[in-house]
């Protein structure tokens, strides 16, 4: 098969839909006013923003346009949801319940609060990364004001029982915040059905532009502004609006809704094909998170290939035109394995060999077949280079995925030779 370019990193970011970009263009050029202005240049923009808001309201079945706050991205939305809610409600209590596998924007916002008088309980997850609603219930104290979970995990694709958790928070009379970033655009979202008071996402994950984030926040969940200045966004988020991006987000949301069934069907099919193909062609490979099906978001696979490391796989895939992500420590700037992989207690050896492939609407069957053909060769090549593979074949170390009963564990081996444990 000829070399081709296959972008499999849609959970990191996506290109902008041409329709969205076309809708944005006038707002860079002739319709350039600020919506705070009272003249026609500003008023015309207001109208555009109102339409965009309506499209996003429709996408998540929000009660009203006033329940949306536009921010600069998913990260700021998560910060505002958590810190803004904590700030506005600290008199009610100082305890927050958070799952162990939230995105760093959620984790670090909660951590910030714990340095400022709050306490947090991390709810663990099971080996496929599911939060157990009973664990959430058990973690809630009479000081709890907020529960933070997510709809779909950004790393391993696990879908979470948010609606069940929503019943618990409703019963307890506390607020529920759901990070919908990895889910929005790839599954239906209905904030009322879910029973969340706060929900955030970032349109650049579903073919909208970067630089814009959404925080849904209904009347039951007051948030205190964290960016001070003018009275934009109803006084809850100061600063001149990123007008073109809001317009693009609206169009991306509208099309995501119309196109949802088709997109989901298409990427689900590719996901299954990729899964089947890779597992057929590669030995000692493990899926992290649930199998393709009702517990997994339709567009991502997270896998670990044993005896080799993630960055090398990523670079060789890239060399072959295939763009993927990895949660391995070598790939992260902090040299730490993704905390999600730690939370599902993935063996360090497997966490090291981590690769994340996330599919998009424009990926084709040919793309997937190219990956299925190319990736095994890369794995083979890296195993050839890896001292672990030979040591495994010789029985000095054992496989975690398919234990032979011979040899010591990789982790033990790594600890022995590096002096310090590899974990």
């Amino acid at each position, binding site marked *: 098969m000829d070399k081709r370019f296959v*972008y499999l990193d849609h959970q990191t970011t996506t*290109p902008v839909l041409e329709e969205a970009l076309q809708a944005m263009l006038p707002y860079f050029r002739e319709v350039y006013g600020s919506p705070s202005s009272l003249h026609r240049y500003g008023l015309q923009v207001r109208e555009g923003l109102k339409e965009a808001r309506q499209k996003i309201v429709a996408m998540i079945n929000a009660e009203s346009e006033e329940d949306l706050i536009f921010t600069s991205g998913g990260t700021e939305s998560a910060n505002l949801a958590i810190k803004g809610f904590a700030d506005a409600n600290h008199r009610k209590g100082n305890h927050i319940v958070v799952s162990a596998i939230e995105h760093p924007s959620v984790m670090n916002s909660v951590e910030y609060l714990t340095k400022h008088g709050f306490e947090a309980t991390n709810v663990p997850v099971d080996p496929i990364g599911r939060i157990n609603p009973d664990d959430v219930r058990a973690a809630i104290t009479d000081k709890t004001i907020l529960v933070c979970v997510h709809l779909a995990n950004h790393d391993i694709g696990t879908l979470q029982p948010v609606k069940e958790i929503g019943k618990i928070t409703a019963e307890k009379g506390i607020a529920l915040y759901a990070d919908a970033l990895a889910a929005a655009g790839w599954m239906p979202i209905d904030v009322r059905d879910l029973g969340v008071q706060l929900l955030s996402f970032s349109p650049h994950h579903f073919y909208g532009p970067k630089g814009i984030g959404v925080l849904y926040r209904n009347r039951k969940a007051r948030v205190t502004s964290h960016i001070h200045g003018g009275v934009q966004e109803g006084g809850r988020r100061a600063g001149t609006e990123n007008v073109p991006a809001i317009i693009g987000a609206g169009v991306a949301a509208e099309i995501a809704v119309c196109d949802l069934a088709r997109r989901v069907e298409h990427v689900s099919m590719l996901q299954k094909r990729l899964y089947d193909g890779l597992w057929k062609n590669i030995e000692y490979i493990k899926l992290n998170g649930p199998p393709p099906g009702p517990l997994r978001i339709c567009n991502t696979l997270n896998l670990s290939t044993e005896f*080799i*490391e993630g960055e090398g796989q990523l670079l060789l895939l890239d060399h072959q035109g295939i763009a993927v992500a990895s949660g391995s420590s070598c790939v992260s*700037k902090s040299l730490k394995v993704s905390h999600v992989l730690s939370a599902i207690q993935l063996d360090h050896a497997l966490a090291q060999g981590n690769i994340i492939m996330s599919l998009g609407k424009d990926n084709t069957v040919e793309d997937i077949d190219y990956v299925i053909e190319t990736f095994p060769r890369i794995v083979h090549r890296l195993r050839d*280079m*890896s001292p672990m593979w030979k040591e495994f074949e010789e029985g000095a170390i054992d496989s975690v995925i398919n234990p032979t009963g011979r040899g010591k564990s990789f982790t033990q081996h*790594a600890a022995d030779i590096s002096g310090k444990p590899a974990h």
Partner: protein
Amino acid sequence: MVSQETHMKETKEYTLYNETVMDHFLNPRNMGDFQEADGVGEVGAAACGDIMKISLKIRDGKIEDARFKTFGCGSAIASSSMATELIKGRTLEEAKSFSNQEVVDALGGLPPVKIHCSVLAEEALKAAIEDYEAKQSPKVA
């Protein structure tokens, strides 16, 4: 719908590491083991979990040949490839004062966070020499 194939301009290659590092990663020199090595060093980096193994053929106090195997990122692989290239032909004494900086320089630089990969290569080499020397004078131990 625009085909994915046209999405990326082919005019320039964008790579994580510089050309030399990429070359040693994509075309590693001296990759493998010896049937019978005179000295073998295998070390691990606690920081990131990389593991590197260097095998030496020694003759007349000189490193006649060297091989590596690496479990690790692109710069770890390139570092071990470059290190084995550099040390071939050196005397053991010379090799004992081998420093990771030589690898970094020969590779034309590594990102700061990846310097430890070159340290791993230095350590693997020194472990291999120690192994060789230990084998040579088993009575001393």
